[in-house]
């Protein structure tokens, strides 16, 4: 029998749990527990996490809470604290930024703790059994491209954290809402009019941010690991013609290692895991200005046989 999802909870029951023991839910291979009394967090959580399975029992990998700090300040400039397993790893933020803070904080929980995986700061999507990893610095258009691709037949594994299983270099899904910022928000709202978005929050450290709901199919298939197929370094350049330039695997390796959270800490196991990913991938630099052209390029790549076919 499929597990109950968060959407199965009536609105009042969801809020009761958020305010008392917390809501335990599965996000990829992890179980998280969220507690909060903040209504705007509850409503965004219900909106974006309805497809996630409720977890049985009181175990969670990460216990997180969004709370209002005590003190006079809360009356004239309301703030929010992110609490992870009893600690406050970040400075308080304005209270209207609570939901983005939850998303950033949950990413922090994974990237600070999940060292049994090699963790790369990259989006990862899959089609026809092969995954494309998109490592890129902020501002490169990674999340926008990822958001467009998952509305064009690609499965979302993650828009932020690529988890590599060290034993076999397979990619482990962590499908969560896609974080968009600034001009990407109205762009994607127009591009994917059927998609669900959280309310936009302005004046954050990243500018205006909003989250786009992960496709239900991607959430339902969070247990399906994927084989690496491509490493694509995207860069958005206004007005630029699309170019897809092969990158030697050796160079791709060094660039991906630079984008990994824990490559150095894992030592030889990190090297072996990344060598497994890069050795199985065709690597490219992608420069683009048109999402439609970029999606067509991905479509073409996914329809071609792997250059690794037949290799051991």
């Amino acid at each position: 029998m499929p597990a109950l999802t968060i959407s199965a909870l009536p609105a009042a029951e969801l809020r009761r749990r958020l305010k008392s023991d917390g809501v335990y839910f599965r996000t990829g291979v992890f179980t998280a527990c969220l507690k909060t009394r903040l209504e705007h967090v509850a409503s965004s959580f219900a909106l974006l996490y309805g497809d996630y399975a409720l977890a049985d029992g009181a175990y969670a990998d990460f216990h997180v809470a969004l709370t209002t700090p005590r003190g006079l300040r809360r009356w004239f400039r309301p703030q929010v604290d992110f609490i992870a397993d009893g600690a406050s790893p970040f400075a308080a933020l304005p209270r209207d930024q609570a939901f983005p803070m939850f998303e950033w904080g949950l990413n922090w929980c994974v990237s600070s703790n999940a060292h049994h995986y090699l963790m790369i700061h990259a989006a990862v999507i899959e089609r026809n059994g092969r995954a494309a990893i998109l490592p890129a610095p902020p501002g490169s258009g990674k999340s926008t491209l990822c958001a467009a691709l998952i509305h064009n037949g690609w499965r979302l594994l993650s828009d932020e954290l690529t988890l590599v299983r060290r034993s076999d270099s397979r990619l482990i899904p962590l499908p969560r809402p896609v974080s968009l910022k600034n001009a990407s928000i109205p762009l994607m709202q127009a591009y994917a009019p059927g998609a669900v978005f959280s309310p936009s929050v302005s004046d954050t450290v990243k500018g205006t941010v909003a989250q786009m709901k992960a496709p239900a199919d991607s959430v339902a298939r969070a247990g399906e690991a994927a084989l690496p197929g491509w490493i694509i370094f995207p860069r958005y350049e206004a007005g630029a013609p699309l170019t897809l330039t092969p990158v030697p695997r050796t160079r791709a390796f060094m660039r991906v290692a630079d984008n990994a959270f824990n490559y150095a800490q894992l030592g030889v196991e990190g090297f072996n895991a990344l060598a497994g990913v890069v050795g199985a991938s065709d690597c490219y630099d992608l420069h683009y200005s048109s999402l439609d052209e970029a999606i067509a390029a991905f479509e073409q790549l996914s329809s071609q046989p792997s250059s690794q076919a037949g290799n051991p």
Partner: protein
Amino acid sequence: MKWKLRDGQSLRMLAGQDESVVYNDHSGDTHLLSAIAIAFLQHLRKSPDNLAGICAALANDWEFESDDELQQLVMSLADELDGLGLIEPCLP
């Protein structure tokens, strides 16, 4: 003086056409090395050797002239690979 791979170096690598990525078991660092540096390391993997022997092996494998220029290159590579902790001098 002879050179040898530093004890404990297993030369795990991701090989490419013109360069390779090598994991340094001693430091935990990862290096991007030229094909000639890799050939140097592979030669020492077989057995320790002096600069003349290394020059001769590289000249043979790469069809170089075994001249002063090659000797300078090999000396420079030895310094570099020693500095990275991949090789070390040993007694003849």
